[in-house]
């Protein structure tokens, strides 16, 4: 090959690199190993973590231990799908394109909104993108309900540094959120999370009225697993709905890859970030799928694009699509019912302990709830790890003793009972 190329050695291929900039030593990394060794290395790292059967998971706050049916990765893991590139070449990408089209359709069905895109990075960045959509009209302010996860607010704050806004949290988080009062024509978006960071059901319409009155957009962060039983964003007057899509088909993966879902009313479609797949027909009139409305995107509009997103979370969206199809309307409703019932049972079990009380008594919740402990929530959680439970996520922004507990359909009554007993022991010790 070198002869064909017309150079005497491999080094000559790198001759354009100026002399002083050539690395004249090997990289300071171990030399290559065999497949057996790299697998053993990674397996031994994985074994140092405690997860799955080894640590019963009641942690939530945007990432949940739902059951992933075997079909999901048996299909999403097919190599024609996972080793493929972005479907710019539609003739060679009908599989991914059609699956994404189905994904968008299902997200629209879930949310009762008109249009959806082919996935964003995750829930938090999907909220950033929704806020950018709202701010595209020229308004500046971004109001955020108190019940929105602080992690999402932090993410908004980071991105706001570049885009020129500071998210205004309406009120210190305290159970159910209070609707905005300081609202004016410079408000671009009002953001609410429902169910909120404590799992509590918010009154979304109470946010919609003032937002509409001020001409601001209402953005809801939703939980896709709730939409079999809870009223969908579209029915609550929401303009843009975003979600962390992980609970559909994606493992916990220590935080990623997940996927951001985003759906909106049709009038916002040209401001929507990311890829959109549309249906079309080929020269023979047969249906087919292509990326559409690409004039919004960075590779065409560059600086004027609606977003800089390029690589997104297609494979995760594909997994979510398969999981949603596996669930269907019946399974989705059952999923919601089971989460709600088990969370309710766990709430009773834990608040039934002498020293544990509800953090926000009387508030209806979905699959997550907050309890107040007589001691540091972090300490209690850590002590419960030794007993095999990941009991929840502390909420230090409320107080030192608040723990947020999530209960998915995957948890059994037995596990919940055992958690209650273990917590009682820990609190007694």
């Amino acid at each position, binding site marked *: 090959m070198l002869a064909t190329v017309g150079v005497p050695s491999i080094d000559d291929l790198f001759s354009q690199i100026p002399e002083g900039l050539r690395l004249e030593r090997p990289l300071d990394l171990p030399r290559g190993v065999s497949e057996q060794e790299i697998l053993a290395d990674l397996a031994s790292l994985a074994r140092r973590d405690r997860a799955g059967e080894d640590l019963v998971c009641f942690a939530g706050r945007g990432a949940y231990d739902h059951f992933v*049916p075997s079909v999901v990765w048996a299909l999403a893991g097919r190599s024609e799908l996972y080793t493929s590139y972005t479907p710019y070449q539609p003739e060679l990408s009908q599989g991914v394109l059609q699956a994404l089209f189905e994904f968008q359709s299902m997200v629209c069905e879930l949310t009762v909104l008109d249009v959806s895109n082919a996935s964003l990075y995750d829930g938090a960045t999907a909220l950033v993108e929704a806020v950018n959509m709202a701010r595209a009209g020229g308004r500046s302010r971004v109001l955020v309900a108190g019940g929105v996860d602080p992690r999402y607010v932090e993410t908004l704050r980071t991105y706001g540094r570049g885009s020129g806004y500071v998210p205004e949290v309406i009120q210190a988080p305290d159970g159910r959120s209070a609707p905005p009062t300081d609202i004016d024509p410079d408000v671009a978006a009002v953001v609410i999370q429902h169910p909120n960071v404590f799992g509590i059901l918010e009154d979304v319409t109470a946010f919609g009225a003032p937002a509409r009155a001020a001409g601001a957009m209402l953005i809801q962060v939703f939980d896709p697993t709730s939409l079999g039983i809870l009223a969908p964003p579209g029915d609550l007057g929401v303009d843009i709905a975003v979600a962390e899509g992980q609970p559909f088909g994606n493992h916990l993966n220590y935080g990623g890859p997940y996927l951001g879902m985003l759906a909106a009313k049709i009038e916002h479609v040209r401001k929507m970030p990311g890829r959109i797949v549309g249906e079309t027909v080929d020269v023979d009139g047969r249906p087919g799928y292509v990326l559409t409305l690409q004039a919004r995107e960075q590779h065409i509009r560059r600086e004027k694009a609606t977003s800089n997103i390029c690589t997104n979370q297609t494979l995760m969206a594909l997994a979510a699509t398969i999981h949603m199809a596996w669930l269907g309307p019946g399974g989705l409703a059952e999923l919601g019912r089971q989460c709600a019932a088990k969370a309710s049972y766990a709430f009773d079990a834990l608040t039934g302990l002498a020293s544990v009380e509800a953090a926000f008594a009387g508030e209806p919740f979905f699959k997550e709830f907050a309890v107040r402990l007589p001691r540091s929530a972090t300490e209690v959680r850590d002590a419960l790890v030794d007993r095999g439970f990941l009991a929840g996520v502390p909420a230090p922004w409320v107080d030192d003793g608040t723990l947020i507990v999530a209960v998915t359909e995957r948890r059994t009554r037995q596990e919940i009972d055992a958690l209650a007993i273990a917590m009682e022991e820990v609190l007694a010790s």
Partner: protein
Amino acid sequence: MILGAPVRRQGPPGEGTVRDLAQPGRAAWSFPDLDVEPTEVPEAHRRRQAPGLPEVAERDLVRHYTRLSQMNYGVDTGIYPLGSCSMKYNPKLAEVAAAAPGFARLHPLQPDGTAQGALEMLWRLEAALCEITGMTRATLQPPAGACGELTGLLIMRAHHTELGNPRSTVLIPDSAHGTNPASARLGGYRAVPVPSTPRGLVDVDALAGLVNEDVAGLMLTNPNTLGLFEEDIARITTIVHDVGGLVYYDGANLNAIMGRSRPGDMGFDIVHINTHKTFATPHGGGGPGAGPVGVVEHLVPYLPVPRVQRDPDGTLRMSEDAPRSIGRMHGFHGNFGVLVRAYAYVFFHGSDGLQEVSELAVLNANYLASAIAEDFPLAYPDSRPMHEFVATAAGLERDAGVRAMDVAKRVIDLGYHPSTVYFPLVVEEAMMVEPTETASGSPGAQSGPGTTEGPGGSAARPLRVHLPPRLTPPGASVPARSPADRVRGGRPRSGRAAPRRNR
């Protein structure tokens, strides 16, 4: 050279969507019987109408998505010679590694003490990426390259802001990827284009004329998007540094230089890496990716939180403690599962293997450029390409009326993925090709069926073009609940082909 395999699972589209398979009453789902008391959703919160998800049996679901997969081209199907995308073979071992319950079932908010394996993986990977790029520390949080760019720009902004003025513009060569200017704007900057010379390199004199105290920095891809190494890179970075600007390295083309040269040594301050390019994490039909960002010493305090830190006793933790940090770029810690695969690639190949990867990638590109030169001359014949090159079909068009897109369609009909065409825009009838190290395992590889049928290779010789461009759509509708809408085509943009390390 074996370039790939025909696409033979390309069946006729139009078997209907999963919804068309649905039958009321069918279902695939199963849940345990509810073992606690059922509860009621408060009346006001109740969903009234079930969502129109499909009702299908599991076997229908399986057949449907199996069928869809067979209508898709992937690296496992054949060569993917898209320029600027490094579509290389994704080692199967990485999939096995990432599936371990200790990784796959780890909750992002677990206490650090229960995630020491994951943290160790991140720690080692960060160090390796810093060594490869010549940076001091890195964040692994950005979930893709574009997010990495924005991360870098926010770091740039924070740096200048601390010095008293965030500045207002960022310089970007005209051949740059679209995410560069888009990210610049999201970082609060105006993007100012830098022109190229006839040899395809940054016009250094023009650059010198563009810099001033209002320039926050320069974003540069090197080797650039034309596949050429910026010979004057040292002067370029100096010019920008001299006005107090920072230099950002778009690492999309890092695959060309591993073990041979390092952005840090070239004078760059910030580097992003696309793990789905250089480190062969599967691209998944458009994602996921990961876009780690490395920085030089004085920019370390601005890196996003949380960051992995090691305590004196060796324990690792996810630390939020960084008062000058730009903050959080992702809801959790980024695409961890992708990073596991990147780790597998980096440490499987090691120092020797990574260098070999770059050498093979460059060799393959140069070989392929020579092999097709007769039909498709290089757009910049005076500069030696690195890991990719831009050829042109302009001659063919003049002589035979055959355009680059016709060649691409013909290549598809032969069963391969074509190269990028009509990009970069500065080149007439451009065909941009990146074979990567995957395209050929060993020098001299030269037989087997379909061998000369390369993308834009001699395959194009017996051109019978103008076969129906089957899905360059006349019009497409946005799915689901929205009305029909005009479409602006499915233009190929970039991408790549993929072997494993040969020993």
